[in-house]
C-alpha cells in the first residue's frame, strides 16, 4: 500500500504517460484523463482489492472497476500498466494498428483489466449494476466501482440505470461522476445544464457524497468513506469535482483540451511540469 506522497509521485508519472501517449499518435483525450489522474491512481494503487497478475474476466473475489466514459482511456491504460496488468512499454501502441490499447477501451483484443467495451456513452452504469448483482448472487462481498463523465449524464440510459440501482438495492456499487463541468462543445452548464446534480441523485434513491478529485488526500478519504457507506441498502454516488487538464497549466480552465493532442512544443511544456518518477515507457 502506497502512502499519499508515493501516490502523488505515481500520479505525476501517469500524467506524463497520458501526455506522451496522446502526443505520439496526435489523437486521444488528454483533458479528462489528466483531471481524473488522482482518482485512478488512488483506485489502482490503494483502494481496489485486486490482483493484476491474476486477472480474470469474472473477477471473482476481487473488486471490479468499469470506465463508462471510455474516451479517457489514456489515464486508465497508464494505471493498468503501471499497476501490473500488462507491460508498461505497451503504452507505446496506444491507438496504433494491431494494438490492444484501442482508442476506446474494449475486451475485443483481450487487454487485461478491461471487462467491458465503452465509448458510446451512457452504458456503463447499467453494466456495473449487472456486475454488482452478479456479485450478490455469487455471494462475493467485493465491490463494484464505476466512473462516468458529467456530460455523459445527458444520456437517458444513465437515469434508467440510476432508478434501477436504487430499486434493486445495489448497495455494493460505488459510482463516481467526473464533475469537471466541461464537455466537447463547451461548459456543461451551457451545452445542457445538469441542474441540481446532487438533488437529482438523491431523488433517484442514491446515497450521495461530494469529493475533491484533484487532491490525493481528499480522494483517499472520500473513497474510504464511500466504502463505509456500502452494504446499507443504497447505491453510493460520489460527485467528484475535478479540473479538466489538471496538472498541465495551459490545458486547465477550458474545455478545449477534451480531445486535442499537444504538438511537440506543447509536449515539452507539459512534461516540464510533470516529474518523471517511475521512468517513461
Amino acid at each position, binding site marked *: 500500500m502506497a502512502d499519499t506522497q508515493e501516490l502523488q509521485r505515481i500520479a505525476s508519472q501517469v500524467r506524463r504517460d497520458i501526455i506522451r501517449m496522446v502526443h505520439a499518435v496526435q489523437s486521444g483525450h488528454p483533458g479528462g484523463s489528466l483531471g481524473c489522474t488522482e482518482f485512478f491512481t488512488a483506485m489502482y494503487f490503494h483502494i481496489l482489492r485486486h490482483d493484476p497478475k491474476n486477472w480474470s474476466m*469474472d473477477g471473482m473475489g476481487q473488486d471490479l472497476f468499469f470506465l463508462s466514459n471510455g474516451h479517457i482511456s489514456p489515464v486508465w491504460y497508464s494505471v493498468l500498466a503501471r499497476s501490473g496488468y500488462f507491460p508498461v512499454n505497451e503504452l507505446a501502441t496506444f491507438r496504433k494498428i494491431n494494438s490492444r490499447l484501442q482508442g476506446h477501451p474494449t475486451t475485443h483484443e483481450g487487454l487485461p483489466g478491461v471487462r467491458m467495451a465503452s465509448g458510446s456513452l451512457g452504458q456503463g452504469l447499467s453494466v456495473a449494476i*449487472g456486475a454488482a448483482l*452478479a456479485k450478490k448472487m455469487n455471494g462475493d462481498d467485493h465491490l463494484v466501482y464505476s466512473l462516468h463523465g458529467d456530460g455523459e449524464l445527458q444520456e437517458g440510459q444513465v437515469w434508467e440505470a440510476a432508478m434501477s440501482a436504487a430499486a434493486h438495492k445495489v448497495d455494493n456499487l460505488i459510482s463516481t461522476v467526473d464533475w469537471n463541468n466541461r464537455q466537447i462543445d463547451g461548459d456543461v452548464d451551457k451545452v445542457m445544464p445538469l441542474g441540481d446534480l446532487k438533488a437529482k441523485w438523491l431523488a433517484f434513491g442514491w446515497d450521495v457524497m461530494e469529493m475533491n478529485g484533484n487532491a490525493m488526500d481528499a480522494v483517499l478519504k472520500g473513497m474510504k468513506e464511500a466504502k463505509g457507506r456500502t452494504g446499507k441498502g443504497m447505491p453510493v454516488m460520489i460527485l467528484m469535482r475535478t479540473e479538466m487538464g489538471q496538472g498541465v497549466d495551459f490545458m486547465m480552465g477550458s474545455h478545449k483540451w477534451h480531445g486535442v493532442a499537444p504538438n511537440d512544443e506543447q509536449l515539452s511544456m507539459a512534461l516540464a511540469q510533470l516529474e518523471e518518477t517511475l521512468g517513461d515507457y
Partner: protein
Amino acid sequence: MSTYPILDKKDTRSGFGAGLLELGRTNPDVVALCADLTGSLKMDAFEKEFPERFIQVGVAEANMMGIAAGLTIGGKIPFTGTFANFSTGRVYDQIRQSIAYAGKNVKICASHAGLTLGEDGATHQILEDIGLMRMLPGMTVVVPCDHNQTRQATLAIAVQEGPVYLRFGRPKWPVFIPADMPFEIGRAQVLVEGADVSLIACGHLVWNALKAAEELAQEGIHAEVINMHTIKPLDEAAVLRSARKTGCVVSCEEHNRHGGLGDAIAQVLGRNAPTPQEFVAVNDSFGESGTPEDLLKKYGLDTPDIVAAAKRALARK
C-alpha cells in the same frame, strides 16, 4: 402434409416460457430479465419459481441490455425478454457495444416479432430485426418455427457461449415439430424432400411452406421444404445442396425483403452457385393493424403467395 400433422395450436412465446422454466431448474447460472412484459413473454412461471434470479427492470430496455451484459461478467447466463422491436431497434447501440463487441454471453429473447403480432400495428411489428441482428459480428440469430422448437431453441442457446438473438411470436400457431426432433443451432432441417424447387423458410412461415408444398404436390411439383431456423450462422451446405438439386429457391420469412433470411441465402447462392431465387417477404414497407391471417394475406406472405413464388422460380430455371 401427412408427415407433419398439427399436434396442437400454441404460441411460440409459450415455448420460450417453457424452455426458460426448464433452464431455471437445470442451470443455476441462468437468470432472466424483463422490461414490464413478463406475462406477454411467458416469463411469469420462471419469475414465480426463481424470484432471486429474475430481474424486473421496468420500461427501460437499454438499461436491461446493459445489466444483462454486466451479469455475464459474474458468470451468469442472462435471458432478456421484451418485444422484438424493443429487443433490437430500440437498443441497437447497447447491444452493439456492450454485448456484441464486448462478446458477452447474453441471450436476447424477442417475442411479438413480425406481422403476426397483429392488431397493435406497425409501431410494434418490427420487420427489420433479423437484418439488424445478423449484421452484428459474432451474433447468432435463431428463428424457430413452432412452440416445440422454440422450447428446444431456448434450451440450446443456453449452452452455446456468446450472444444470441432468439426471435419468436405472439399468435397461436400450428405445432408440428415433434418435441423429440433433434435440434441443433446452425443445422437446417429438411422437412420434406423434393427435386423441383427449394422452399427455405424460418419462423411461422415454415408451416405455410409445408402447406404450399402440399398444394404444389397436387400439381405434380415436388417442393423441398427446409426449416432454416438459424439465420446466422447460416447452414450454407444445406442451402447449396438443395439449390443444386432443385435449381431454384424460394425464401420465406416474416421480415422485410431487405436484410433477412432471403438476403442471407442470396449471398450464399451468389458466391457459390448462382440460382434463381424468389422472395416471400414484406416488400420494404411497414405493417399495420389487423389479424395475423389478414396481414399475411395483404402483405404477400400467405401460403398461396409461396405457391405463386415457387412457380415463378420454376419458370426461371
